[in-house]
């Protein structure tokens, strides 16, 4: 057996009394693609951060090529050829894509950045790995999916031996995911080692050589991919056999809840804008919005939730024209609940306590509102109830919201948004970064609301769209290019529609043709 690239022996990492990693033994062979799976809070990210030099474990040893090392900080890890792409981006918004990618070691002449050289390097890198970016675009103007690609390129720029990716595909489209999987394979063929964290077992089965399952800070399974199955992995992750429910029975659509008529938004801030978008949401249905990230879905969400004012067209909520008075406040008052696409910047106040985050909205109504005061006891009861009902872990409501893992942040947001019993639920990527068990819970919540609400579901996860939606709208370049029933579409057909390739005879003709 060859010398392993990385060996972890008895690695233990504690946060206070909480044991995030408990005596972890893990071996990574050179040139393998190693998937790490597990529920939110299982300790995956913590373990990877230990490898990247961001955490120093209390106990245990790390060997690189059989040689003991102390990865005390990220610089040391990088010098040893370990690069990590984090789940949450660390990009400088005001700088261009190229500047961000080369930041760690910019091409310089007389101490000044050679901008053109940097752009060439990044264009080359982008081509090599098939991760499409515009080197001169400002990061602030890039959509989330593009920013993720910039992050990956930033890590690849350092030409690492081991590349760690924390949920790399969470924000990628199916096509981009396939491309990334190809890239991972080609990296592997160059003898590089790839470790990636994911929730999607499909990807694990497609690309990994070996998979390690973590649960509650421990490794419960570490096997070759040939010797396992998705069912075995899922069971190992949640510690029980998971009943994956089939599609819920459709509910007969009821009254009209929301209608958009010819809504136009001019492109701004790098977005594509909206091109005469019209559709109707009825009570009892889930309308899935499919599309490659950056084709107007974000703008559509912003218009319905009042975050953005359209330049033309009308928005009607429950028959009322609200175009002129559109604001988040007005839309919420009209019954809109919003699970936003970016939880850190929009969905939460990370530096405020979980308690403060959970009572937003409810704080303006009794019993939490008591005259001009916030009733502390009622607020705590409310927050505790949400934490328990949605299994937010760890459920310390006095801790800052930023101390939660991504999946638990998402659970907290969903808990808060659904608690006000909204009739129009706008859910953007509701299960992004959420583990299987929690995702099933979210699905059940959304479907369970159909007897009194309608759901607009925006997702880049096609399986999610196909499984939950009663109707699917496909967006391309700011317009709705197709509408279809989920039974009438396969994932492949949907992928083609999203790429702007309209077949001659889709099951239903596009509405906005």
């Amino acid at each position: 057996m060859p010398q392993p690239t990385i060996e972890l022996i008895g690695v233990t990492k504690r946060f206070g009394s909480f044991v995030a990693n408990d005596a972890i033994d893990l071996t990574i062979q050179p040139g393998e693609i190693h998937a790490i799976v597990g529920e939110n809070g299982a300790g995956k990210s913590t373990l990877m951060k230990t490898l990247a030099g961001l955490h120093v474990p209390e106990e245990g040893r790390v060997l690189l090529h059989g040689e003991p090392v102390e990865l005390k900080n990220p610089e040391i890890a990088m010098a040893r050829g370990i690069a990590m792409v984090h789940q949450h981006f660390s990009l400088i918004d005001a700088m261009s894509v190229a500047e961000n990618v080369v930041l760690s070691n910019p091409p310089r002449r007389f101490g000044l950045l050679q901008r053109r050289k940097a752009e060439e390097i990044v264009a080359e890198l982008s081509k090599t790995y098939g991760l499409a970016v515009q080197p001169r675009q400002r990061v602030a103007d890039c959509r989330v999916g593009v920013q993720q690609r910039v992050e990956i390129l930033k890590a690849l720029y350092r030409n690492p031996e081991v590349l760690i990716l924390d949920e790399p595909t969470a924000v990628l489209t199916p096509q981009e995911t396939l491309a990334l999987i190809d890239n991972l394979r080609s990296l592997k063929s160059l003898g590089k080692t790839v470790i990636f964290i994911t929730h999607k077992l499909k990807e694990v089965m497609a690309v990994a050589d070996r998979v390690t399952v973590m649960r509650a800070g421990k490794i419960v399974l570490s096997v070759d991919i040939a010797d396992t199955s998705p069912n075995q992995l899922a069971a190992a992750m949640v510690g029980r056999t998971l009943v994956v429910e089939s599609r819920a029975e459709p509910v007969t659509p009821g009254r009209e809840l929301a209608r958009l008529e010819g809504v136009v938004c001019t492109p701004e801030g790098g977005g594509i804008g909206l091109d005469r978008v019209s559709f109707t949401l009825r009570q009892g249905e889930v309308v899935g919005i499919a599309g490659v990230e950056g084709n107007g879905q974000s703008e559509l969400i912003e218009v319905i939730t009042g975050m953005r004012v359209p330049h033309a067209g009308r928005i009607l909520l429950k028959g009322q024209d609200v175009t002129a008075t559109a604001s988040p406040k007005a839309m919420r008052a009209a019954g809109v609940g919003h699970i936003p696409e970016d939880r850190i910047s929009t969905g939460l106040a990370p530096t405020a306590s979980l308690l403060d985050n959970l009572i937003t909205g409810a704080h303006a109504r009794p019993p939490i509102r008591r005259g001009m005061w916030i009733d502390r006891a009622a607020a705590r009861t409310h927050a505790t109830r949400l934490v328990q009902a949605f299994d937010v872990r760890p459920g310390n409501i006095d801790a800052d919201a930023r101390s939660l893992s991504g999946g638990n942040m998402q659970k907290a947001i969903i808990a808060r948004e659904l608690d006000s019993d909204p009739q129009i639920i706008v859910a953007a990527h509701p299960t992004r970064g959420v583990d299987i068990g929690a995702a099933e819970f979210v699905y059940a919540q959304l479907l369970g609301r159909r007897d009194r609400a309608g759901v607009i579901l925006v997702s880049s996860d096609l399986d999610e769209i196909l499984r939950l939606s009663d109707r699917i709208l496909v967006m391309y370049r700011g317009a709705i290019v197709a509408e279809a029933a989920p039974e009438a579409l396969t994932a492949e057909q949907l992928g083609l529609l999203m790429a702007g390739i309209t077949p001659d005879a889709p099951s239903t003709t596009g509405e906005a043709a």
Partner: protein
Amino acid sequence: MSADATTGGPAAAPPANGFVARAWQSIQMPLIATLAGLLLTTVLILSIGKSPLDVYAALLRGALGSVFGISSTLRWATPLILAGVAVTIGFKAGLFNAGLSGQIYLGGLVGSLLGFTIDLPAGLHPAVAILGGGVAGGFWALIPALLRRYLGASEIVTSLMLWYVAIGISDFLVRQFFRDPTSAAFLMSVKVAPDAVLPSFFPVGNVSVMLFVSIAVAIVAHYLMQRSRLGYEVRLTGANPLYAFYSGLPTGRRLILAFCVSGFLAGMIGAAESIGINQRFVSQFDPGFGFDGFLVALLAGGNIAGCIPAGIFLAILKAGGTEIERTLGVSKSIIWILQGSIILVVSAYRLRDQINALFKRRTGP
């Protein structure tokens, strides 16, 4: 384990649970900063061949060792506490009221104007003058708040610039219309009516009922910020404006409110200084309360009620400095060095994390 004794029992439990642990968390940084500052000044004092113990003894004697010293400390604590609260309220909303001095100045003008132009009974007159000064300060803060809200102009720059405008307006009005004819070298207004003067309740010095007003304002503001609906919305707006907007909160109005309240308190300082200490408007009466307010706020670490001890602490340094100079011949600049180094360490918030990590490792099993 001896390390346990260092952090105290409760620190072994998860952080920020329980009163003692929380109190320790909030006092830890100012304490470390003060020790670091004292260390630096000790080295400096030694290097000029004086005894640090003498200097610190003189400092404490000057500030607390006599009735005069105590009255001097309390006199300085009165505006410092209010200034710290004014700055902290801005911080909570994510705003930086760099123009505190301008609002103080205008508050001083309007407070003294109300002091000598109108006639009111003794109890009411100072109250009206101080509230009037507050309104003036609040109005002066409204301008940068509106500029920020509707034009996106940085409130830091606009409020700071308006400071100079406030000086210009006040000095011009006093010079043209209200100048005390007997004043020659200094620009000052006529005296306020005797009824408007805030009397000192100390045998010596200038400690007025304003001291209790300052402390009460800090406590009430703290309570309102933590427990009221408006306070919650202001805090949320400060923590993440985009989230607050997305949640349907009227973020613009909350920003304006917080900034105006900050200006109102600043205006109160100016008015109280004018009618209480100087008994008239004196040009350049503000010895830098605006800047001191930031020191108090930083020392209090964003805690409004924490401005009370922080304000008293800085007042001790201010009051004791004179004694050092008078009895030991050591320049009271040493106090500024002490203040400066304390603030430097307090601002280095990452230091706190490292110190906490150190303790955690030592107390870890």
